[in-house]
């Protein structure tokens, strides 16, 4: 292509394909549009699940029935969990930012299988619709919790089957995305980009994709076994039929523990992108981060039993799983040291994405260290199924993956939409959110240690004080979320336009393409001979447009 046609290329947002209007989005095979489709879907369902969460916290404002009864509360935490886990954080960062940026960051025009990519989104939507039917049909909304533990999941009169089947269907979407990304990374890296020149976000997507491919089928089969048990009365898990309920827990967590790494690895990748850019310093220990990513992906397959310490496994299994759980914490800690060392003596630029990244470090460490408290056998007996667990995983899933998601959107926003958001509102939103977050979840650690169980609509009067703090925190946090979302949505529609290619001074390839990117990202595939994040040439003088 010659240079004068170069000027006329429309961005992917304006590009007019075969279909017009909404069809041009929901039938588009452009990885960037598909990424945005996931983003909008998730934004919507996140709001639904967040409202459920706020209502639950309001119920817990005082002991006894305040705004809902036990059955409603049970179905609320079930739907809240199913949406947040299966619809938001499992597809999460790979589906949105992986789709949008993986091809660009490795110098490709699209993913390896663009149509499969679109199919993944459709399968995901169909899965969601199936889950939603469970709310309005049959015996009423399921009340099992997102874990569908046997034997309750086939004894409850509520409508478990559609929920389970919907989760099964969404699993296919996850597997297809995984396959797509593995092939894309193997086959479509730009010439010269050897494995160790690949940026870290694609590396974490690679680890994640393998987990998606290898672990998701296990949950698929397990959920089908529930269906068989409920419909045909075959005894896999029901002791009355000769089954073993602990087998269900094994199968469920053989998927669901690796799934927590599906959630957190890409988040770690995003943080590894943001920190060097806003520290103007090469990432510390690139290889260590790559190795620890793959180590987490690998060891993460063998620790699932730590969810079952009190379920009646054999003693040897207890030791083994506790030991392996402690092992998997090592590579996570390595990364934290790498990030902190990257900032050391860097030239810190205090923009919104950096705030999210630094607060990620804090909440992730609280989440990880309390994970060790839960991974130790003796303390687990005391804390299992208390609010301590709820606090642990919200710190790490919401605090970890959620903060990274917010960091990612504030980092890549100008590139994605060709518009800039209002930094003041973004920072204010972050501050309010962070304070609300801490006040919502920190008291739960204390409550758990004092013995307040999880998954109850009521509690003993002595737990009242910390619960008030926690419920108020929920309202503060939601105000922060509202500010952030309002700012982003307004800016995406009418914020000041920018075609600045590299507003933050990033070194990875996505900062060299047009803003917003054109349909095929590149006119000419670049050659990559440098390692990413090389800031040795940083002079201390920033881009004046910044």
């Amino acid at each position, binding site marked *: 292509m010659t240079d004068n046609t170069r000027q006329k290329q429309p961005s992917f947002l304006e590009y007019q394909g075969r279909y017009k209007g909404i069809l041009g989005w929901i039938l588009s095979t452009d990885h960037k549009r598909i990424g945005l489709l996931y983003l909008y879907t998730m934004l919507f369902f996140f709001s639904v699940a967040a409202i459920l969460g706020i209502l639950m916290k309001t119920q817990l404002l005082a002991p006894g029935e305040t705004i809902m009864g036990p059955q409603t509360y049970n179905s609320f935490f079930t739907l809240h969990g199913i949406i947040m886990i299966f619809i938001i954080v499992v597809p999460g960062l790979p589906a949105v930012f992986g789709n949008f940026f993986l091809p660009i960051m490795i110098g490709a025009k699209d993913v390896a299988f663009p149509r499969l990519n679109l199919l993944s989104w459709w399968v995901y939507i169909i899965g969601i619709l199936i889950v939603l039917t469970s709310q309005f049909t049959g015996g009423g909304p399921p009340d099992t919790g997102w874990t569908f533990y046997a034997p309750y999941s086939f004894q409850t009169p509520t409508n478990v089957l559609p929920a389970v089947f919907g989760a099964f269907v969404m699993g296919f979407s996850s597997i297809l995305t995984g396959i797509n990304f593995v092939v894309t990374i193997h086959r479509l890296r730009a010439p010269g980009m050897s494995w160790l020149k690949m940026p870290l976000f694609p590396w974490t997507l690679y680890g994640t994709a393998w987990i998606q491919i*290898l672990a998701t089928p296990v949950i698929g089969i397990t959920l089908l076994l529930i269906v068989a048990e409920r419909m045909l009365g075959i005894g896999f898990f029901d002791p009355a039929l000769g089954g073993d309920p602990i087998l269900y827990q094994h199968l469920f967590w053989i998927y669901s523990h690796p799934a927590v790494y599906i959630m957190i690895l890409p988040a770690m990748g995003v943080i590894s992108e943001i920190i060097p850019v806003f520290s103007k310093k090469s990432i510390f220990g690139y290889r260590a981060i790559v190795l620890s990513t793959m180590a987490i992906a690998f060891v993460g*397959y*063998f620790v699932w039993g730590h969810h079952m310490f009190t379920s009646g496994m054999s003693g*040897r*299994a207890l030791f083994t799983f506790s030991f392996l759980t402690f092992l998997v914490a090592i590579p996570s800690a390595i990364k934290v040291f790498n990030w902190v060392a990257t900032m050391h003596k860097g030239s810190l630029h205090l923009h919104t994405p950096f705030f999210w990244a630094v607060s990620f470090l804090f909440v992730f460490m609280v989440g990880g260290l309390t994970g060790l408290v839960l991974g130790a056998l003796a303390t687990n007996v005391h804390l299992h199924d208390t609010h301590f667990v709820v606090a642990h995983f919200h710190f790490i899933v919401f605090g970890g993956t959620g903060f990274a998601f917010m960091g990612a959107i504030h980092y890549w926003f100008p590139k994605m939409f060709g518009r800039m958001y209002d930094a003041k509102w973004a920072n204010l939103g972050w501050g309010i959110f962070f304070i609300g977050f801490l006040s919502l979840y920190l008291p739960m650690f204390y409550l758990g240690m004092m013995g307040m169980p999880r998954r109850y609509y009521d509690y003993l009067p002595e737990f009242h004080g910390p619960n008030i703090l926690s419920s108020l925190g929920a309202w503060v946090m939601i105000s922060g979320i509202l500010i952030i979302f309002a700012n982003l949505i307004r800016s995406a529609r009418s914020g000041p336009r920018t075609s600045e290619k590299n507003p933050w001074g990033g070194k990875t390839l996505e900062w060299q393409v047009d803003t917003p990117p054109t349909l095929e990202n590149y006119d000419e595939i670049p050659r990559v001979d440098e390692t990413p994040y090389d800031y040795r040439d940083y002079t201390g003088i920033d881009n004046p447009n910044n």
Partner: protein
Amino acid sequence: MSEEKTHIVPYKTQIVVLIVLLILTALSVAVTQLEFGSYNTLVAMLLAGAKSVLVLAFFMHLKYEKKLFPVMVAAVMVIFLLVLFVTFFDYSYR
């Protein structure tokens, strides 16, 4: 990106593999006459495993692909076996 090479497996190899597969099948029927106690499953799995390796290597062309592919398939199998192994820390010692 890399130029695609197609490899044509000669008929002779195909037939030899087929015969070996048939022999292994006969063998797996034959061993059911012998009693290995709790190792019965292990023996059956080993024979089945040998057969799948042949099918993967020759009929599915894994032997002629770049090294990477057999390594990946093997890695997946290793993870699967390790998951089974770890599960039996529970079931064998309850």
